[in-house]
């Protein structure tokens, strides 16, 4: 693919159709500026500020935009809140729809057939592969992103975090917790998607 993509870029540049510097700028944006720290800030604010959490429930697009997180693949946002009764899990069975504006580019597993095929039929099995074994009584709600709405899971706030400020709270929120393949504040699974890991 290296040669095929290089040939395509050369051809399109020669034809004046693309600007290689624009590609550099796009890559830089998604490597350094837009990533899961954005989403973690949304979650931390929702945990700390009931008014913001309420706004997030009613109009996630506007609430998230108020923190400066807007744009491509985040044009229409919906926040779904984990509760004691229900755990939320997000997938796109048809392609790879994912909330870029709050989580950045998706990981390979999110785009791969194993996750896209099984998340809707065997979510408990999928979660177990992430090291997350939920109690039997916990209901699982899967959101298949079949339109342009992009879902952000708001995990439950971990116990014992009452005194923490928003910055510290955001550090407990991994990317995977905001997809639903992890819970917040669990060191066991944070390695697969912690802010530090990215």
């Amino acid at each position, binding site marked *: *693919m*290296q040669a*095929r*993509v*290089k*040939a*395509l*870029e*050369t*051809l*399109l540049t020669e034809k*004046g*159709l*693309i*600007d290689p*510097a*624009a*590609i*550099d*700028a*796009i*890559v830089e*944006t*998604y*490597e350094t500026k837009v990533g899961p720290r954005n989403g973690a800030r949304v979650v931390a604010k929702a945990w700390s500020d009931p008014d913001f959490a309420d706004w997030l429930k009613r109009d996630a697009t506007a609430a998230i935009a108020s923190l400066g997180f*807007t*744009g*491509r693949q985040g044009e*229409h946002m919906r926040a779904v809140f984990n509760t004691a009764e229900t755990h939320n899990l997000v997938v796109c*069975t*048809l*392609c*790879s729809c994912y909330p870029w504006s709050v989580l950045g*580019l998706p990981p*390979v597993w999110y*785009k*791969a*057939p*194993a996750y*896209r*095929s*099984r998340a*809707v*039929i*065997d*979510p408990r099995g999928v979660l177990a592969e*992430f090291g997350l074994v939920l109690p039997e*009584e*916990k*209901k*699982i*709600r*899967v*959101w*298949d992103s*079949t*339109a342009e709405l992009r879902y952000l899971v708001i995990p439950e706030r971990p116990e014992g975090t009452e005194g923490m400020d928003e910055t510290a709270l955001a550090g407990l929120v991994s990317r*995977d917790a905001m997809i639903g393949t992890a819970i917040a504040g669990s060191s066991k699974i944070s*390695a*697969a998607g912690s802010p530090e890991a990215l």
Partner: protein
Amino acid sequence: MNGPHDLGGQMGFGPVAPEMNEPYFHADWEKRALGITISCGAFGAWTIDESRHARENIPPADYLSASYYEIWIRGVETLLERHGFVTRQELLSGRKLQEGAVPKRVLKAEMVPAALAKGGPCDRPVEAAPLFATGERVKTKNFNPATHTRLPRYARAKLGVVEAVQGFFVFPDDNAHGKGENPQWLYTIVFDGGEIWGEGADPSLTVSIDAWESYLEPV
């Protein structure tokens, strides 16, 4: 269409393989593939729906053995050729052989921040009252078009409940094929796991999709 992309409920792909400390890109060509795809999308020559359809039309054996950015490159090559920007010969040779179509715009580096920040909202002004209300039971249609649709196979001819009326959105089944945006109401429809997967389904499971109004029938 019933293409290789419509993966919900298919079996045999093995376990999910999370990668520790996964990088955003696994090779330099993946970075260029992302940038080329976004840059070509900025031409304004095709819609996101047409680009999805170009990817789902990749033959199943190729689609399922391709990495994600390879699927993107195969899709964008199809679109560039279809819309007259490049010829097959040019794609094969990697060199300009003739003049081609002229795009509405070429994405320059200085335009990137604004273009990414703007995105492509696809909600539209409301033109009609919604046919269905929150809490109403509905049935998804059973159809198998050869054209683009965003109603997954596993969720066809199933009974569900309208959980939310989301707004008035561009209709991909038309927009993918140059038939206009023809926006419709979009609903979140929730199904019990048992309605979709039948015997042996996880009793605690509910699955929702976002469905355009014309995918739905009253019960």
